[in-house]
């Protein structure tokens, strides 16, 4: 340890959810435990630059537990009731593993809306400040503070002795990752950090599947946009910009997960990402194998979105007309359906229909980067048609 300020901040951020997890597992009220941990962190910032304790985590647990006890004493004194909660001694590092999952499943409780679960997870487990979370989601700090405190109230009433369903936690982590990078806080990095913690704490291969999926997509981030911010589709990305170390790690995590023979949707999605990452050029992509994984994914987690992405793979393996036939049964208002249809029509040689569909897809895009990309596609095809006529 270098003892620098950054190093201290990093250490505290890693320890925060662990300490909070210990208090919550001992039965402390969630909001009260969080306040106590914040006070303990202030003490740490005051004392640690001079003397860092041998066991920082135990130190924080002890101080936070004392703060919690102080707060409870004050509260009980106000109510003229005697103290009933007894805090046990620190159970030691072996239980840290369960605490991570316990705390995450509490923050991702099914009673919370996705937005509330995301905000609470980033605050209580990620250790981000309310201001940072507000900035990431482009809302006022007061609004985010309110969202977080309501979420805390929602989960505070429920006692948590056992971790809840891992699936709910994975969905929230996936949503955080998919938010990407919207401003001052890198939510994709944050999601990876949290998923790593969870993967270290559980033996569910789907957790590793999600971690692999994140790493394999994160590896392409530098190639995903031009310096001007324009979207670059996978087939046109400069693959020399891909992060080979992240790809190697993602593949390793995925292979270890698959070897345990408990397949799930995140492992299947990661396998598809791995096959793309493995191709030295778009032309060398192993589409037949990708299609097999989409068949698997459709079986594990059937949805129109998966069927739409599968149609792209069918188009690559069996030709664009086969791909178009796959679109027939899909809802007309499915996001990106027009964009996929446009691409398949272009491949099939129907430039006029492709241009019309690109323009229709642009009009219905839900984000500006995708709209601009689709508009450029329509404009490229229309310019080509004008030049020919």
């Amino acid at each position, binding site marked *: 340890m270098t003892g620098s300020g950054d190093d201290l901040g990093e250490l505290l951020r890693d320890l925060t959810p662990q300490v909070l997890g210990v208090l919550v597992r001992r039965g402390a009220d969630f909001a009260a435990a969080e306040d106590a941990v914040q006070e303990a962190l202030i003490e740490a910032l005051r004392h640690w630059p001079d003397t860092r304790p041998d066991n920082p985590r135990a130190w924080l647990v002890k101080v936070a537990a004392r703060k919690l006890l102080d707060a409870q004493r004050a509260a009980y004194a106000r109510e003229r009731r005697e103290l009933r909660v007894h805090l046990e001694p620190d159970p030691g590092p072996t239980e840290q593993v369960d605490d991570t999952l316990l705390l995450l499943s509490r923050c991702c409780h099914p009673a919370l*809306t*996705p*937005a*509330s679960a*995301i*905000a609470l997870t980033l605050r209580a487990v990620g250790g981000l400040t309310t201001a940072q979370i507000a900035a990431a*989601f*482009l*809302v*006022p700090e*007061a*609004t*985010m503070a*309110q*969202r*977080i405190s*309501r979420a805390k109230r929602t989960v505070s009433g429920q006692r948590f002795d056992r971790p809840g369903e891992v699936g709910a936690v994975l969905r929230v982590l996936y949503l955080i*990752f*998919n*938010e*990407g990078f*919207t401003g001052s806080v890198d939510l*994709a990095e944050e999601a990876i950090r949290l998923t790593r913690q969870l993967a270290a704490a559980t033996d569910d291969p789907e957790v590793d599947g999600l971690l692999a*999926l994140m790493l394999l*997509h*994160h590896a392409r*981030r530098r190639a995903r946009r031009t310096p001007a911010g324009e*979207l670059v589709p*996978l087939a046109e990305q400069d693959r020399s910009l891909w992060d080979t170390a992240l790809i190697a790690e993602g593949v390793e995590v995925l292979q270890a997960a698959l070897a345990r023979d408990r397949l799930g949707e995140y492992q299947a*999605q990661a396998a*598809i*990402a791995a096959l*793309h990452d493995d191709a030295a050029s778009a032309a060398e992509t192993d589409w037949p194998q990708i299609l097999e994984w989409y068949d698997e994914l459709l079986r594990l987690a059937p949805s129109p979105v998966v069927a739409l*992405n599968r149609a*792209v793979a069918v188009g690559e393996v069996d030709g664009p007309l086969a791909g178009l036939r796959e679109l027939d049964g899909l809802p007309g208002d499915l996001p*990106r359906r027009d964009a996929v249809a446009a691409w398949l029509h272009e491949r099939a040689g129907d430039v006029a229909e492709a241009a019309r569909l690109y323009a229709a897809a642009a009009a219905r*895009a*839900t*984000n*500006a*980067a*995708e*709209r601009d990309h689709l508009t450029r596609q329509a404009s490229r095809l229309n310019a080509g048609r004008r030049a020919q006529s």
Partner: protein
Amino acid sequence: MAKYLLLKHYRSDHAVADGDLPPMDEWTPEEVNAHIAFMRQVADELRDTGEFVDAQALSPEGTFVRYDGEGRPPVTDGPFAETKDLIAGWMIVDVDSVERAHEAAARLSSAPGPGGEPIREWIEVRPFLGEPPVVTE
């Protein structure tokens, strides 16, 4: 989460549902106060639910402006007293679903008018274009 713009119009192609609504300067002072207090209350409710992003009111006075070539002053036109569609202000909410955005808009539209009755004005709801998701394949 997605952000929606809730647009309030002074006048629009969508007439007020309940037929003739007198202009606000013909309401009693109490009715005007109750209307304004209601708007503040809705903003506070949305702050409390963690969904509020912004609210602004616009002056009805406005001018159309355009570029008129290098070195020339901008061309201005208006104000147009007879413009059919005039934006009065907006509220921006960050909500879990389009249904929730509609709920917030309906709440705004229930603002009291003459006699304390809901005015049922049309609120235009427009989704923001956000950021693309990371995973698309």
